[in-house]
């Protein structure tokens, strides 16, 4: 039973990872790409790790998978934030059809 649920989680995780990569290719600028990359890849990878945990239970491998989920949830948003901020500070433009850029306005004034 655990293995079936594990396979289910791993499939879902792979699917979301795939959507994340697709978003990385299709979306227009770095900020939108980071959105796809952070969200989908975080949950996708967490799904795969959780599936691995269900396969192995509370063994050495399963516990490490759970720890990896915690670290991933803590670090992925931070790195996305650092990349976005760095890109904006070094002058990467938003997509030309973007609606507004309050950050640019506030930094100029």
């Amino acid at each position: 039973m655990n293995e079936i649920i594990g396979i289910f989680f791993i499939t879902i995780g792979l699917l979301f990872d795939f959507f994340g990569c697709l978003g990385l290719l299709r979306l227009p600028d770095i900020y939108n790409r980071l959105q796809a990359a952070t969200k989908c890849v975080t949950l996708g990878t967490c799904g795969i790790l959780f599936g691995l945990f269900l396969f192995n239970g509370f063994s050495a491998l399963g516990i490490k998978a759970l720890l990896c989920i915690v670290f991933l949830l803590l670090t992925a948003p931070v790195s996305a934030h650092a990349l976005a901020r760095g890109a904006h500070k070094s002058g990467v433009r938003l997509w030309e059809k973007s609606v507004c850029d309050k950050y640019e306005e506030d930094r100029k004034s």
Partner: protein
Amino acid sequence: MKSRIILFFLSLFIWLLLCWPVDGEHLLIGVLVAGLVAFMTGDMFVKRPHHFLNPLRYLWFLYYLPVFLWECLKANIDVARRVIHPDLPINPGIVKVKTSLKSDTALTFLANSITLTPGTMSVDIIPEEGVLYIHWIDVKDKDIEKATEIIVRKFEKIISKIFE
């Protein structure tokens, strides 16, 4: 001193999870290294250690987890839908929102939560003014108050109960 004790037990706990079937040798090494780490960097870890003793905060944290996971799942489905839609329905922009949170931990968790929830990603924080700049993949409102209402409110209340 309290901060050192908390860091000691936390790092020992993570170490024991890493080498799970616990035996004597690993436990000894863990105690030694966690003690060294806590001795050297303990006073930087938490500023207000008395918060760790309040059980209500843990209960709020347990409430925060399912809310956060549900939002995270919604975010993924939302992004997946935008990505596979042939017309690429996005309407991006950077908006400004306000927050009433003050402490570093609370702001970090708020920014992380915002990044992992539907359509939003934090770009910069100015803690002195309580201002966050958010990249929004589908801008619904450019106004500060309305954007704050939509993006920040649902997490701010819970996080202020946990970390403030």
